[in-house]
């Protein structure tokens, strides 16, 4: 059986889809939460609530979109954004990730103890 370097494999899985990094910023979390709660919105209405400039909101939305946390839809001259909360699922399992990680490290600790002198 292959010993899985649990942390690396799982972290790679999560980090690779950019969800964690995208949500590390509190303004982006707030924007995402507004969309998840209140449904589709345009940049103007998001800016009114975000407390930062419209270009800043657009930049945040770009990062959220790259992480597939939001989707945009062009309507006339405006983009409308909506949340894709299912993209969060892998991130919410971080406790499972750490559990796998520590079990693996406990195994390694026991193996080391067997090799050590008293």
């Amino acid at each position, binding site marked *: 059986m292959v010993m899985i*370097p649990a*942390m*690396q494999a799982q*972290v*790679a899985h*999560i*980090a*690779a889809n*950019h969800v*964690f*990094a995208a*949500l*590390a*910023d*509190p*303004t982006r*979390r*707030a924007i995402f*939460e507004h969309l*998840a*709660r209140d449904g589709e919105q345009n940049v103007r209405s998001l800016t009114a609530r975000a407390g930062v400039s419209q270009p800043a909101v657009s930049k945040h939305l770009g990062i959220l979109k790259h992480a597939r946390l939001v989707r945009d839809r062009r309507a006339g001259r405006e983009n409308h954004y909506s949340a894709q*909360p*299912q993209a*969060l*699922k892998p991130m*919410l399992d*971080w*406790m499972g990730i*750490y*559990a796998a990680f*520590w*079990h693996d*490290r*406990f195994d*390694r*600790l*026991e*193996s*080391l*103890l067997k090799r*050590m002198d*008293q």
Partner: protein
Amino acid sequence: MTEPAASRSLVIEREMPHPPEKIWRALTQGPLIEEWLMKNDFQPVVGHQFSFRSTPVPGWNGVIDSEVVLIEPNSRLSYSWGTMGMMSTVTWTLTPTKAGTHVRMEQTGFRSEQDAAYKGATYGWTKFIGNMERVVGGLD
């Protein structure tokens, strides 16, 4: 009022057929820690800031920033554990038993570094994750 974060703890326990003193060495001597956990510049001194380093992967630099919080030789060891914007504390407790040692690892207080810096004035991870668990839970 109880913080929601308080319930966010992970406990791993195992009985090991070795004396606490020996396990303590494996938990607190840098080269030994590296053999089972990660590369590190740990020193068993309260307040010592150090890092654990593992192989970087795309999106993660492999670094865990830590500070020694508590040292009680052969008994308790605690350090902070910060990575990817998430802060937690890892506490080891060694209890002698007839057959050896009961080893307990508890990782608690998962919160974002931003939350720690802004004292929750902005959207906190804990609240966010709580809210989002409800949203995502509703998808099933």
